């Protein structure tokens, strides 16, 4: 890897449960102390279970706002409830109340309240942690508060912190575990990335979701490579995926056979490269290929 360049790798899958996090954590172990790890699957973060970060520093994360009604000032006119498009201000026991789960924080109610009874308050949406992993790398991870919004913003925060740490420490690579889907957390995790690793499986759902997430990646014009996990589950679907990769000029990084070592390693709180098996060597091969991709000029 060129010493003066910081590369950012994002691992995505579209569909959940394809082995994305197990593979990301394995790459993190192989990268060692030269990497900064970012767990951007803030909705259901799992990488900490394998990388054993020390939760060294904790920061509260605030994002978005919540309307709050001062009942002493409220004259029950109902204007706020009339303008709220989110039905977040029901009348209960003759009082207008904000339903925090429905309030999107637009502030329309605050602006139209004739008695200035409504104020907008900052909303806590989770914790961000800066840790050291068992591989010696720095890791930024987060825990979104239960039923909180704005996971896209929290993803951006985790990524920006990881970048700052990498630059300050002269690190060369940031490895990002993304979330499933194609919505705001995925889009946030793609901003600024140099390379995307796609982890899929040979099922109709796997291929369908891969295509959708790749359509998003394409908009960002980021180079991508794909791993077909459990490739031997359905050979026909595996070749369909390979055809798709060829058509779209997505690199084919590796085929990984179905292996119970994924869950066995997880139970031992290890990554698959910490246990001697053929899979260990496949994942090592993937990491070599990815490093090669990063040094290559487009």
């Amino acid at each position, binding site marked *: 890897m060129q010493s003066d360049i910081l590369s950012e790798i994002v691992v995505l899958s579209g569909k*959940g449960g394809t082995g994305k996090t197990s593979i990301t954590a394995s790459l993190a172990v192989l990268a060692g102390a030269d990497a900064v790890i970012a767990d951007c699957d803030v909705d*259901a973060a*799992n990488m900490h*279970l394998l990388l054993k970060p020390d939760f060294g520093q904790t920061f509260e994360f605030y994002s978005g706002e919540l309307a709050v009604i001062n009942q002493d000032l409220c004259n029950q006119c109902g204007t706020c409830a009339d303008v709220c498009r989110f039905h977040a201000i029901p009348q209960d026991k003759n009082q207008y109340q904000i339903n925090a789960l429905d309030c999107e924080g637009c502030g329309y109610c605050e602006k139209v309240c004739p008695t200035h009874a409504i104020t907008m308050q900052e909303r806590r949406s989770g914790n961000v942690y800066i840790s050291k992993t068992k591989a010696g790398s720095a890791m930024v991870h987060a825990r979104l508060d239960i039923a909180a919004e704005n996971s896209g913003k929290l993803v951006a925060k985790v990524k920006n912190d990881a970048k700052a740490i990498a630059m300050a420490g002269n690190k060369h690579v940031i490895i990002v575990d993304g979330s*499933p889907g194609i919505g705001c957390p995925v889009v946030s995790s793609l901003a600024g990335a140099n390379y995307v690793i796609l982890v899929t499986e040979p099922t*109709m759902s796997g291929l369908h979701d891969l295509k959708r997430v790749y359509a998003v990646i394409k908009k960002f014009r980021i180079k991508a490579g794909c791993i077909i996990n459990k490739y031997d*589950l*359905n050979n026909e679907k595996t070749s369909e995926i390979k055809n798709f990769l060829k058509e779209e000029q997505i690199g084919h990084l590796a085929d990984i056979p179905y292996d119970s070592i994924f869950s066995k390693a997880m139970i031992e*709180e290890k990554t698959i490269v910490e246990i001697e098996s053929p899979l260990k060597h496949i994942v090592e091969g993937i990491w070599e290929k990815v490093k090669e991709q990063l040094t290559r000029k487009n």
Partner: protein
Amino acid sequence: MAVNNPLKIAVASGKGGTGKTLLSTNLAAFLSQEQKTLLVDLDVEEPNDFLFINGAVENVSDQYKMIPSWDEPKCTLCGSCSNTCNFHAVVQLGTFIAVFNELCHSCYACSELCPAQALPMHKHKMGTVTTKSSGNLTFIESRLEVGEEQAVPLINQTHDLVDTYYKAIPIQIFDCPPGTSCPVVAATKNADFVVLVTEPTPFGLNDLRLAVETMQKIQKPVGVVINRWGIGNDEVEKYCDQAQIPILAKIPFDKKIAEYYSNGELVHDKIEHLSTSLHQLITAIQHAV
């Protein structure tokens, strides 16, 4: 609850890939052998149920959200809209008003508070709802347009559509998105009962805990289905025991199920232990609500 309200069952999970789609599609098809059943795919970012459900497409409708558009001749460049928008979706750039569609939450504040009425709201396509029907089974898929970032408005709109047109279907299954944040809350909020699908691994357990906390916060009764039972350890069962959450069914790991699934085939009529599990599941839910 009024007698003729439908029974709404949401199928959710913290972790992705635990078997929500497998369970939702097979449960719906299983129930439809005996009664009218509705299946709604609310995993709008990555909807997969349609791969398993045959039947003729009856209706496809575009779904819109409302966003402001700048009416330049009317605009006095007073800057009110830019100050009003809490999401930075409407920004005044010199003598130009820029609207960032993907940031807009459709709150209407900029539009209705504009003193010159220079930001009328107009329709913006965010997704598609497709209806299929086969025998007793009606299937609705809600699909987010690629490039759209907000799942919640589409999920909410799909609920409204179901309540307007399909109220008469007595049993309704909602396949929800993975995770624990706003899309899951939106997808499960109308449910009478939430089934959380997990797998017996540390990831499965970690995300199940988060999903349970989310459902407790919105006060939904929950039960757990352990899929791929046997691949991991018994920590999920211990947790459910301790937290007094009913385990509704355990679906043993079966490579046959995975193979059928990979080809987009239903299994409730092919794998006997699965139909037994589905029967247990629905009996337990009906008993619980």
